[in-house]
């Protein structure tokens, strides 16, 4: 699994769109090395000084980029991601929301075959605090420190990151998994990575209703796979069963996916459970000092 650091060299696919342009500027402000952009048909142009190419292969050859962030609208997102993987980009961060699940299934299967780390789709991206961000999260919330964050949500992730920063802990690496029913990178792979990451002393796990990814993460923690302190917040205790709560993946189906099931599983794995978002940061402060 490959994440990011200050040396990661980024290509922005869909750089000439409103979102691509806006977030390219924010990423550069943060210190991310954005070396190239791709929009087919716009090769030879530039976006605020970042050269634009027609293909990812060309961008790689000319700029040396090794990771991609995708803002391409949903109908073209699968092709964009396959192109990035074929050109050897790793990680590939898919910001696009609204990708058909059939396309995501294909994307994730291909990533497994090529050994590419895919973050998302429908993710805010990832950030190595103080070094680099490949994503759309607000820059000012994060400060280099010792807490790793894994979240299925965007704004709730920023909310909790802000509390972690306010507690004086700061963040190491933070990853938004994405709000879709099927996503590439998941909790367990990240927990394994955080277990070995010397900069991470504890983890904030931010989950929500739908599916059973949090339960599986809890099993993994309980089995001894992750030994650092974990504080968790699960959104959706007040959710209505059978209704999609904003995210395509946030839905309680039958007996699967309720907040209680996730909370109980995580509590069973000795994770501290936040009753409200701020409690996650407080629990980590208590555990890490």
């Amino acid at each position: 699994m490959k994440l990011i650091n200050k040396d990661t060299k980024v290509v922005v696919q869909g750089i000439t769109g409103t979102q691509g342009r806006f977030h390219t500027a924010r990423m550069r402000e943060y210190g991310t090395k954005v070396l190239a952009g791709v929009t087919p048909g716009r090769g030879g142009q530039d976006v605020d000084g970042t050269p634009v190419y027609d293909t990812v292969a060309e961008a790689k050859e000319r700029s040396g980029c090794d990771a991609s962030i995708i803002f391409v609208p949903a109908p073209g997102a699968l092709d964009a991601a396959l192109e990035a993987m074929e050109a050897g980009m790793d990680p590939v961060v898919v910001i696009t929301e609204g990708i058909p699940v059939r396309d995501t299934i294909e994307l994730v299967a291909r990533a497994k075959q090529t050994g590419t780390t895919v973050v998302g789709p429908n993710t805010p991206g990832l950030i190595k605090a103080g070094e680099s961000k490949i994503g759309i999260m607000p820059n000012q919330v994060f400060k280099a420190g010792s807490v790793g964050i894994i979240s299925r949500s965007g704004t709730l992730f920023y909310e909790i990151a802000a509390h972690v920063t306010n507690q004086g802990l700061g963040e190491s690496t933070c990853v938004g998994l994405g709000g879709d029913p099927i996503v590439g990178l998941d909790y367990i792979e990240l927990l394994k990575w955080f277990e070995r990451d010397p900069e991470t002393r504890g983890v904030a796990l931010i989950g929500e209703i739908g599916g059973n990814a949090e339960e599986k993460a809890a099993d993994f923690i309980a089995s001894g796979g992750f030994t650092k302190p974990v504080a968790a917040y699960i959104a959706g205790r007040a959710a209505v069963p059978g209704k999609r709560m904003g995210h395509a993946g946030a839905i309680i189906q039958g007996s699967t996916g309720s907040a209680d099931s996730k909370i109980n599983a995580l509590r069973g794995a000795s994770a501290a459970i936040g009753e409200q978002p701020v409690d996650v940061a407080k629990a980590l402060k208590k555990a890490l000092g």
Partner: protein
Amino acid sequence: MKLLEYEAKDVFRRYGIPLGLSVIAAKPEEARDASMMIGKPVVVKAQVGVGGRGKAGGIKPADTPAEAEEAARQILAMRIKDLPVRKVLVEERLTIQHEVYLGVIVDRTAKCYTVLASIEGGMNIEDIAAKSPEKIVRYSVDPLTGLRSYHAISIAKSLGYTGKKMQQLSDIIQRLNRVSYEMDAELTEINPLIETAEGFIAADARLNVDNNALYRHKELEAKFLESFEGELTPREMEARAMDLIYVEMNGDIGIIGNGAGLTMATLDTVMLYGGRARDFLDLGGGASPDRIGKAVEFILRDSRVKALFVNVLGGITRCDDTAIGIIKARKELGDNKPVIVRMMGTNEEEGKRLLHSAGIETDDTMEEAAQKAVKLARGV
């Protein structure tokens, strides 16, 4: 998007899945004609987008055209789970030897399509799973090879079929899988798949299409809003027509947030302090002042809302835009209900300044704001 039985069957028919003779009818007389055309005993089935129609009396047998007409008259006058029955499907009645369950789902854990099959058809898959989980065969389809003939054969064989029946069944499994893939289905289901002396026939059909994929299925777009009838409340339908992400709930505190996770956490925090949310409304990312104004107005017009709590964490969404939207909606409606705003992030200072000069207070944390919302909704 959930298709009705007859709509799903139209698709299944195109894919060569064996079906009984059937005709759709919107009037009792049409049901009589349909029954005459079929020329055999029939069943008359309500076409509604909710489960449990059988128990509600929405499926009736009829031996003659006159009986079919009468059955249709009764069913078309019914409301099933509060939904009007607009159409009935008149279908030939089959002699059942055995009922099989077949389904293809999007499997979140295995990250692929998974075929589910069971010889305990006729009841829903959750009940089979609870009663006899060992009787469910699961097969996860490798996205890179697809479901091949030998995979389908081995599923049919696991259900205990051999020879010609095994081949027929595996053919249907492959066809259903093709429907799932090509129609971008979150779920396809044949339950029951009836085993008769002549072979298998799909007696019921379910097909739920991934809303994100509707741009690939233009033929369904016209029916999109209508298909939510069983799923959404009238207010939710109204919100969807306005392109708002909204879920109606039973409390009295209106909630607007940006981002699904934060908005859910806002509901949860209100509940933690003893309040009850009236709704979930997610503005999504980068909402314009107009969109925010529209959302605020939609909630404040709800007579059951006693106070509104707006929780915005500015990233792509700007706090000043949020403030402009709120102020605009309030001007439109007058100062009718308390509004509690918590904002943080992009252009926070400007947003707060605008709100304060319009006489709207702000809070810095969602915990404080939630407590205030609960108090104000109680009229304290």
